[in-house]
């Protein structure tokens, strides 16, 4: 026992609690199983340890200890690789795939959260050592709030208006509103699709949103999330029954065609509104210098 024992214990506890708080299983069902969670709790423990011991090390004028954090960075890059590889392997057996953009987003989040844990541990240990346990607690609460802010990204509902439209056929062509989805040749399939299918039109609220929802990865993420939450009328060997999202080239609206097991318009709308806008899909054309002047983009 020495003067650093309690601050270190405190910092590690804060870090671990932050990791547990950020690691909640939701409708995406990932990570699902106990072992998957244990991997992340263990890594969170390591991260909190690294963040915590950095403070006393600096106070003891052991400045080389900061190189520890470089070690941490490479360690957690591996976490990202691990998540990416696992999810890519599993994705091949999904009825409706997550898509690479979504997977990359999840992998980045797992790496990023470990850095948030390091940050939380570092800040709260530092505050404890500089002041007392109460300043430590205040710092812990602030870092919790910061972590929470970084954890929650924006949702699709923020950037698009969603409207339900009954899908229909013109000849063999399947349409959602005026957006062409695909060609279905068999009469029996057409009837199935009309019975089970639902169509939604996503109308971008601004020019930035138009580019974001045009991203194929973002569209696949929508299809995956809806199919996860409402089930999907599909099996291997029925490639014609596939949820698709196509774009109206004229005005950037996106037509979503889904085949849910549970046909509930309001639920489906709520789910689409809650789909995360993928960081890798977000585009900001209005920030381009040339676009800032002259005729505004619509």
């Amino acid at each position, binding site marked *: 026992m020495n003067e650093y024992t309690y601050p270190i214990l405190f910092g590690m506890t804060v870090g671990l609690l932050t990791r547990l708080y950020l690691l909640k299983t939701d409708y995406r069902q990932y990570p699902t199983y106990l072992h998957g969670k244990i991997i992340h709790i263990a890594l969170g423990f390591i991260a909190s340890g690294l963040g915590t011991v950095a403070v006393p090390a600096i106070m003891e004028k052991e400045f080389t200890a900061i190189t520890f954090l470089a070690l941490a960075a490479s360690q957690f890059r591996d976490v990202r690789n691990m998540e990416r590889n696992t999810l890519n392997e599993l994705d091949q057996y999904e009825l409706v795939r997550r898509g690479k953009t979504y997977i990359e987003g999840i992998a980045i989040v797992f790496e990023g959260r470990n850095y948030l844990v390091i940050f939380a541990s570092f800040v709260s240990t530092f505050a404890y050592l500089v002041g007392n346990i109460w300043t430590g607690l205040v710092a812990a609460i602030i870092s919790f709030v910061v972590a929470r802010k970084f954890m929650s990204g924006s949702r699709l509902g923020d950037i698009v208006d969603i409207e339900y439209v009954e899908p229909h056929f013109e*000849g063999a062509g399947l349409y959602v509103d005026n957006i062409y989805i*695909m060609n*279905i*040749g*068999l009469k*029996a399939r057409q009837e199935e699709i009309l019975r089970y299918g639902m169509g939604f039109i996503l109308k971008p609220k601004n020019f930035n949103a138009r580019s974001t929802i045009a991203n194929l990865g973002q569209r696949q993420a929508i299809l995956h999330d809806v199919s996860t939450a409402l089930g999907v009328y599909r099996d291997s*060997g029925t490639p014609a029954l596939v949820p698709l999202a196509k774009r109206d080239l004229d005005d950037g609206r996106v037509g979503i065609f889904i085949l849910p097991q549970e046909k509930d318009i309001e639920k489906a709308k709520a789910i689409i509104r809650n789909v995360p806008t993928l960081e890798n899909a977000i585009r900001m054309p209005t920030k381009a210098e040339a676009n800032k002047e002259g005729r505004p983009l619509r």
Partner: protein
Amino acid sequence: MTVEKVILAIITTSPHKVAGGAPTFVCQTDEEMQRVAANLEAILDGIAHALSEDLLIIVKH
């Protein structure tokens, strides 16, 4: 081996409209054409697309 984005089979009631590469199944009636196409769709794991009333193709995507 999977062959994708290729016309795997043609099913038609108007054989004079098609020629060349893909296996062609000539049917007498519309019902027969639908039935053959449904079978082929399942067997080839492809989608039956209609090019016109009397002409279907199977493509795996």
